[in-house]
Every structure is written in C-alpha cells, then in structure tokens.
C-alpha cells in the first residue's frame, strides 16, 4: 500500500483549506438564503389565483429541476456571456451562487408549497375572519405552523447544498474541492488530499446538522406533533 500519512497531516493542519472552507460556507449560505426567498415567493405564486403566474412557476420547476445542476453552472458562467455578446459576463463566484440558488429555489418552492398545504385552510379563514389582511395571516398564522413541515427537509437541502457547492470547481470557484484538485495536480497524492477534503466536508456538515437540529427544536417546541382536531365536516 502506498499511503503517506505525513502528507495527510501536513495538509490537514495547514491553513491551505481555511479560505476555501470559508468560500464553501459563504457559497452555501448565500445560495440557500436566495433559494429560500425564491422558494417562498415561488410557493405563493404557485398558489396564486392568476393562472399565468401558476404557469410561470410550473415552467420554472420543470426547467430548473430537469436540467442537471452541472449544466446550469456552466451555462451561467460560460454560455451566458456568449449568448449575450459579453453584455453579461459574471465572475465565477456570482455565476456559481446564481446557478446553485436558482436550481435550489425550485426544490424550496416545492418544500414551501407542501408546508403551506399542510396548514388547514380553516386556520387562514379564522385569521381572515378576525380582520387580518392576507399578509398578516400568512406571517402570524400560516407560516409559523407551516415551518414545522418546512424546516426538516430544508435542513436536508442545506446539507446537500454544502456538498453540491463542490461542483463549482468546474468554473474555478476556489472552494474546498477545487483547491484539493489543485494540490493533487502538483503532488499526485490523490488519496491523501481527498481524505483531507472529505474531513473538511464532514466537519462542516456535522456543524451544520447540529445547528439545524437546534432550530428544529425551537420551532416545534410546545406544539402538538399530530394534526389538529380532525373532525368530520358537514356541508351547510
């Protein structure tokens, strides 16, 4: 076996992956924050009473979930400048964040939509009957209850995003995996360097899961895990 423990240790305990780790974290959070905003608006639009708006959402979901994420990343960085005669020529980081957040926004749209659907229609109706505007009913009544259903899959998506961000190495965003491949191209110690790269990802995803679990606990505190009062309804 050809395994150089020394390379592993010196790479692991050097500062070479600090900036890349920050880049990975920054890309992940930026993409998720945008994706959450896109998903929230997407779910609202999907439930809109305007058919045209609903169709726009359907089209968005079809395209951004149907095309591989790697293709989308290359599109935003390499194809868009050509398509627009260089009018739009994004730096790698911006192109990467846009690609990841729009693709992720499609999944978040579905997550928000199922979250809203999980809240009984009577909740919104009761809020409206008390004089709440649609926006206030959403903010105070529907969203807090929908979060119970939204947060767990959102946490999964967050961790998935951390790992998916490694694809940005194809457009030379200096994140963990890109820097790892850089190093291997000089020293050819593929196994050792990939091991260190993996340790970094494991560390970051472990920290992220911990944070997510704390948030989940906060959101479900004091609430029933079972759906509220399921009783037969008689039509009037």
């Amino acid at each position, binding site marked *: 076996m050809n395994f150089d423990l020394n390379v592993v240790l010196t790479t692991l305990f050097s500062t070479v992956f600090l900036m890349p780790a920050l880049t990975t974290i920054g890309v992940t959070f930026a993409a998720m924050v945008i994706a959450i905003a896109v998903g929230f608006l997407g779910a609202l639009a999907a439930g809109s009473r305007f058919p045209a708006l609903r169709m726009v959402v359907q089209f968005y979901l079809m395209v951004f979930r149907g095309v591989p994420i790697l293709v989308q990343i290359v599109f935003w960085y390499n194809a868009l400048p050509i398509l627009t005669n260089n009018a739009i020529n994004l730096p790698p980081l911006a192109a990467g964040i846009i690609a990841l957040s729009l693709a992720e926004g499609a999944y978040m749209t579905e997550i928000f939509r199922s979250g809203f659907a999980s809240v009984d229609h009577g909740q919104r109706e*009761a809020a*409206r009957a008390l*004089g*709440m*505007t*649609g926006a206030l009913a959403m903010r105070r009544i529907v969203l807090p209850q929908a979060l119970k259903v939204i947060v767990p899959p959102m946490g999964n998506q967050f961790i998935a995003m951390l790992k998916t961000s490694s694809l940005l190495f194809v457009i030379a965003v200096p994140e963990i995996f890109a820097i790892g491949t850089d190093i291997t191209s000089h020293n050819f110690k593929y196994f050792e360097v990939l091991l260190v790269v993996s340790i970094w990802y494991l560390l970051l995803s472990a920290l992220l899961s911990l944070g997510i679990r704390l948030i989940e606990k906060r959101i479900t505190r*004091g609430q029933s895990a079972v759906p509220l009062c399921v*009783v037969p309804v008689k*039509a009037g």
Partner: protein
Amino acid sequence: MALVEIRALHKRFGAVGVLHGIDLDVSAGQVVCMLGSSGSGKTTLLRCINHLETIDSGSIHVGGELVGYRMGRDGHLIAQTDRATSAQRARIGMVFQRFNLFGHLDAISNVCEAPVHVRKVPIAQARAQAAELLEAVGLAGKEHHYPHQLSGGQQQRVAIARALAMEPRLMLFDEPTSALDPELVGEVLETMRALASKGMTMIIVTHEMNFAREVADRVIMMDGGKVVEDAPPAQFFSAPSHARTQAFLARMR
C-alpha cells in the same frame, strides 16, 4: 337602518347557483337562527356576510357599510382592497363549525392575537382582557392550554372568546355545535345564550331546535337558496306557513 341589510343577494359556485335573491334585515341586538337542510345555502349566506365568500350581485351592508365592495356608478359591485375588507371583518365575529383555533398558540394567545396585531392593543392590556373573556366563557385556568389539550366544547368556547376580543358588533355562528360530542353541546349553547342575553347581535346557523326556540328573536328557514320562512320562534315552530318548513320540522321531530 338595520345593522345587517341584505338585498337581492345572488351567489353561484361556477355553474351552480347557491343563493337566489336573498333579502334579509337584522336589527342590532337581534338573535336570528337559520335552519335548513344541507345545501340550502345557509352557511354560504353566513360566509357572504363577512365576505369570506364573494357575491355575484345584490348587496350586503353591515352598520351602513357595503361589505367587501364599493358600488360603481352604474350600480355594479367593484371589489375593494384587502385592507378595507379586513377592517370590516374585524368588527364581525365568526365562530366556525370546526373551531379553527390557531394550533401554534395557547388559549390566551389565540384570544389576544387579533387585538394585538390587528387593533394594535398593547399586549398587557390585550392579555388582561383575554383572561377576562376566557373566565367569562368558563375557562379560567385553561389560559396556557394548547388547542389539542382542550375538548371540543372548550375549544369552541375559546373560539367564541377569541371572536369577542375584537369587540364585534355582530357575531356569526356557523353550526357551532355540529362537530361536538353530544355531551359537550350544552356548554357551548350556554355560552351563546349568555351572549344573547347581553344584547349581542347574532346570526346562527344551527340544527339545535330547542336553542332556536328559546333564544332566537327570529327563526329563518332556508331552502334552495331562498329564505322561505322568517318568523318569531313561537309562530315558526307552531304554525309555519311554508310547506317546506312544515316538512323540515316534521323530519326533525
């Protein structure tokens, strides 16, 4: 002018007509019970009064204001803003068949939610008022129970307190006891009876004949999207004029 004035109200769901020209006045302080079989339109009529349902033609005025619309120059209805309709709904209480208490809030927070966030009542004052209301409906000590920890009858009484917290000038009840176990019906009716005796204007869709007989000032029979009988309870139950009412009462006995 009556508190509630409904004129030539028509409502359809797609191709199906539900209300075919309703005219109805309810004066301040009156208790009106609406009876009728399933599909007669009584729940829909109730939901139109606070604009939870849109209307197709006619008009509904509450306290002199057209609810949910403004009148165009040629007399057709123009939808008004969500904010304006919400302000009107804030003065009309509604109690639902399935309670619809907010599941993420305890009893007292259910009651304070709208006063604090809609009427902008200071929190301390809203909570004090909510505690009083819960006591008035017999739920002192249950302030911090969540809906799933309360029986159906208790939930419905919280729902009544929640509606009253907005200091409504009109209360709408949509089959408030239909989803309750029989032994829990009495406590809710008792709460409603107390409310009626304090002079609250109430429109109640119900199947509780005895309650209608004892508490209502007027009993209304709906059939096929029309009001077919509108009489004081003594006359309604002893000498109904319409054949549909007679048949309905015969079946209920």
